[in-house]
């Protein structure tokens, strides 16, 4: 897959989704698995745009790349925000609360984590890298 660089803005999310689905097609993932990967990447890319860039008043890009081998698709999203490892955040604990007590928000990373086989963080130079690992089905 040819890597893709997009402006770090919410308007880029549709192109992020297109990149994800192109990678998923190349890796021959099912539609269901591809949609879950889209959700995971969408949530993380949204957090980058909103928290690493917009809230800090910074401009930046989203750097997308994908590696496919026999066992898995690994999709990488990099940003130039401050070092931040979202995988250390605990899951929400109020999923069974009644409507009145549910807080608005806080679900994005929880959904991202459960939608892929592995979600990995690394810091590479001045970039944060999130890697989404989806196992490929064994050949028939």
């Amino acid at each position, binding site marked *: 897959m040819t890597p893709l660089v997009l402006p770090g803005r919410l308007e880029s999310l549709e192109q992020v989704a297109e990149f994800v689905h192109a990678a998923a097609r190349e890796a021959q993932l099912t539609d269901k698995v591809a949609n879950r990967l889209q959700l995971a990447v969408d949530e993380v890319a949204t957090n980058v745009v909103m928290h690493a860039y917009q809230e800090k008043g910074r401009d930046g890009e989203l750097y997308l790349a994908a590696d496919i081998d026999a066992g898995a698709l690994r999709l990488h999203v990099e940003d130039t925000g401050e070092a931040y490892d979202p995988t250390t955040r605990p899951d929400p604990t109020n999923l*069974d609360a009644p409507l009145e007590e549910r807080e608005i928000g806080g679900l994005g990373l929880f*959904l991202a984590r459960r939608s892929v086989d592995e979600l990995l963080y690394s810091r590479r130079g001045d970039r944060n890298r999130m890697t989404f690992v989806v196992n490929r089905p064994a050949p028939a």
Partner: protein
Amino acid sequence: MLEILPTPAEGFALVTLRGDINSASAPQVEQAITAALAGQNPPRCVLDLSGLTYTSSAGLRVFLACAKRIKTAGGTFVLCAVQPAVYDVLDVSGFTRILTLAPDLAAARLLFPS
């Protein structure tokens, strides 16, 4: 791509959503629901999700905010015809237990006896 169709209905506001909800398009959904509810007391709203194929947590956030606001005002908020990919996200987030879901629009209508 998200398409929002405010649809005429009797006795409640009906908003039909088609396509995808992400954080870029979610604010339009909230605006459409708010506009559809203008002048209704108590607020009664049905979202027809038969054509909604995807939502991120940004859509859940809008559904939850609207459900809370409408409940506080003594009204009714119903999601109908939720498709499997969207249902999965609602369910794992605990939303299928706190929101009112109807299998289709005909079933949603029954929740608003005239």
